[in-house]
């Protein structure tokens, strides 16, 4: 069995920025830091292949939409 080591998405600036901003909003208390981190990392994985310059905006938008849906 071969294991492919993917780069840790948490190293990505787009993830760090999105997590920081979403935690500063109501999602930090409503969903909790672990859930926010997980949602953001998932969004980042699904958006792999998008232009690097656009990633911060795309990741944050998608994560915010998913958090908003789950919280409400």
């Amino acid at each position, binding site marked *: 069995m071969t294991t492919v080591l993917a780069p840790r998405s948490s190293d990505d600036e787009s993830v760090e920025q999105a997590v920081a901003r979403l935690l500063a909003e109501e999602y930090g208390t409503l969903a909790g830091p672990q859930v926010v981190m997980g949602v953001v990392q998932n969004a980042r994985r699904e958006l792999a292949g*998008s*232009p690097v310059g656009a990633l911060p905006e*795309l990741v944050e938008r998608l994560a915010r*939409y*998913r958090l908003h849906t789950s919280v409400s």
Partner: protein
Amino acid sequence: MGYVDVAGVRFTLPDGRVLLEDVSFRVGDGACAALVGENGAGKTTLLRIISGDLTPDGGSVARTGGLGVMRQFIGSVRDDTTVQRFLIDLAPPAVREAWDAVEAAELAMMEGDDEPAQMAYANALGHWGDVGGYDVEVTWDTVTVAALGVPYDGCKYRELASLSGGEQKRLALECLLRGPDQVLLLDEPDNYLDVPGKRWLEERLIESRKTVLFVSHDRELLARVADRVVTVEGGGAWVHGGDFASYPAARTARHERMAELRKRWDEEHQRLVDLVRTMQQQAKNSPDMAARYHAMQTRLAKYEAAGPPPDRPPDQHVAMRLRGGRTGVRVLVAEQLELTGLMKPFDLEVDYGDRVAVLGSNGAGKSHFLRLLAGQDVAHTGGWRLGARVVPGFFAQTHAHPEWLDRSLVDLLWHGEPGRPGVDRGRAMATLRRYGLAPQGDQLFRSLSGGQQARFQVLLLELSGATLLLLDEPTDNLDVLSAESLEEALGAFDGTVVAVTHDRWFARTFDRFLVFGAGGQVYEAPEPVFDEARVQRTR
């Protein structure tokens, strides 16, 4: 690497007339070919067929290397197109499609910011990156800085209509010359450019390694840039493989060769017809001759079926006869003349027979000066007067005659105007024929091409009996042959000529050069001066 190969193209106008028949030529890799022909010969139609805007009735067009097209209307865009949209429309098709997809995804997100819309937007951005969209944006930044002196982000939402005609042309040319397309079709790229702008264009086209096919009436540009000349005439096209300097001789030689071939064909045809007639008589008297008679009939039929070689294209019949007349020695005297707010006071004396070119950048007051001499109301101080027997005749830029737009040419000639008596229909048509305008006699002035309007204005000058010609950019819209005809007519004109022009080739036929400088000073130069800076005025 890019080339254009046009093979056997045929195109019919909506009214059934065949405009192009069996047009074939090739513009090879790295060539810079000029497309010339008289007004209305089909140059723009041919460019539109090559670019794929029009579908020919027959024949084919092959090309490689990506195609960039600059259309004729650029320079006169007056709608709400933005700089961004303009640059996108000049980009390769893949980039245009990717941009449209990004815009559509952005709009969809505004309507509903759900997960599918966001993923579609991410995909569209990914595709934009894949087709090189981000690199294209860097190029656009270089282009806007070069053409307008502003970064792309600072002008992308600016309306194109707020740019001058020269700026619009420069923007398009910078974009195409720096872009990835290896084949460029440029329809009158020099229109709206001042002389420094034209010189810049010449240098860029000479430096460029792209394959270029361009339409221009500027003989200086043609002479400096074109390494071959494609001529559209008589419904067909042919290629002169040399530069523009050797083109007139090559064209004359070709026409003579065509006339000779046609003459020989006609002579051989007549010989065969005569033979058939003789043998027909002989066959009546001698049955032995019947077989030979039928053989000769077959030979004649085959000869006629093969058809004659193409006849030489009809010469463009533009015969301008500006007669003039003897006037006093001193034709014009200006003393401390100043057009209010336009230039500083200056003195000028023009004598009978002088050919004075008025040069300088746009906005310097040259056209106002001519209008003043033509007797129009122009604010000024200082004095000026015309000499004995001087009758001014004014050729204005074509948009300066709104009162002519809805009248036919025959009507304008029939009624005359102050200083120009009317003429009957017969004489009007005869005069129109000399200017190649007989078919347009009953058309409205507004429906004529720019070149036809210019020719008609020269015709009116001829009829007015002017002895002092005041010409404002007379060659601007004239095709090469008409411009040469005007030069010949001016050469034979018995009188004085004062002309405003940016046409370097035309200006060299003059013997005095009055320059309206950028700083408002007016001075006479021994040689043509074309690099006066643009006049800056607070508006």
